[in-house]
């Protein structure tokens, strides 16, 4: 994967370093992330709909952690926005963050499709 052009989507070399250079394990982790993201995104949609801002904060925080650990900067930032929206009890911000998360996740998927 070329790092320079896609560093906003994934910083591949830093993610690889975190797992001791094991590329196939990293791929496994990304698959796990995608699966987990799918579940959490559904929960987030529900939480935003029901204006459950504590849950918005919790899920946002959890996604921020996993995005960070896989060196996915834009998804990390979008999750951070979500966590903050929950913390600030700002439902409008949460709605925006949800859209942003969705966009960034699509971009990651496209990127992975192209590069696999």
């Amino acid at each position, binding site marked *: 994967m070329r790092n320079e052009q896609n560093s906003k989507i994934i910083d591949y070399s830093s993610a690889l370093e975190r797992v001791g250079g094991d590329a196939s394990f990293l791929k496994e982790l990304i698959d796990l992330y995608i699966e987990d993201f799918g579940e959490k995104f559904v929960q987030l949609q529900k939480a935003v709909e029901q204006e459950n801002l504590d849950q918005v904060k919790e899920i946002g925080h*959890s996604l921020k952690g996993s995005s960070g*650990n896989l*060196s996915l900067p834009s998804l990390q930032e979008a999750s951070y926005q979500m966590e903050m929206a929950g913390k600030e009890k700002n439902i409008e911000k949460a709605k925006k963050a949800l859209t942003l998360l969705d966009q960034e996740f699509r971009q990651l998927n496209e990127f992975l499709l192209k590069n696999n």
Partner: protein
Amino acid sequence: MIKVLIAEDDPVSSKILKRNMTKWGYEVVITKNGEEAWQVIQDDKKISLAILDWMMPEIEGVELCRKIRQEKKEKYLYIILLTSKDRQEDIIEGFNAGADDYITKPFKYLELKARLNTGKRIIELTNELERLANRDSLTKLWNRRSILRTLDKEIHRSHRENKPVAIIMLDIDNFKKINDTYGHLCGDSVLQKISSRLKKNTRKYDEIGRYGGDELLMILPNCTLSNVKKIADRIRHFVCDRKIKTETGPMSVTISIGAVSTETIPDISAEELIKASDNALYKAKNKGRNCIVTN
């Protein structure tokens, strides 16, 4: 091998941790929330290091950390808090709650490895301290303080569960003579060998310690008087039937035993029970040694 508990709700983080740590030679157990982690910590005595995520469902990492320090007294648990918060006040709160170290997310591979190494060093030191504080250096049996503490615990448990506990007080016949004739080094070696024979012949849940000099104390939970008689007899044969190899040649050594069970003397205190076993042992000596007397 150091056994580690990870409490982390994010599957990606816990998978990275588990993979890396397994590679570095740790045994890893994963839990998904604070409540589950607390259960495992209480049940699995082998766990000596815990990595707790700060933000988790049920019980938060920092709260779990406080709980562990308040309620878990037996074995020291080295705690590393996992946090994406690297704000000064959070770190301080974590340390005040009893954490030994912290790691910030996202992980840095080499830093993670280095911090775990520090943890490992401290765990090995506490294990060594614990061993020194609780074991008798000559016989490697429990020392007096430790075996008496176990007795206290077992007596309380026997009251609670309404089951008898038995103890065996034994000593080596004519041990003074062995020391005087062959020297103290030879006496030490006899004591060592008898201790290791005893250890091999105890049930899994029995404990044995050096009460003092050549007096050894065994604690047998859930054991009636007739049971302790049988066990004492087996022990006496196991210890005495074969000669003991010493530097001055093979030596016949016998032991005398005082065995008592709370079955016939319920509601007895630890102190009184020891006294009863001591009296029984004294009678065994007067009967001509190499025999068993019970209450």
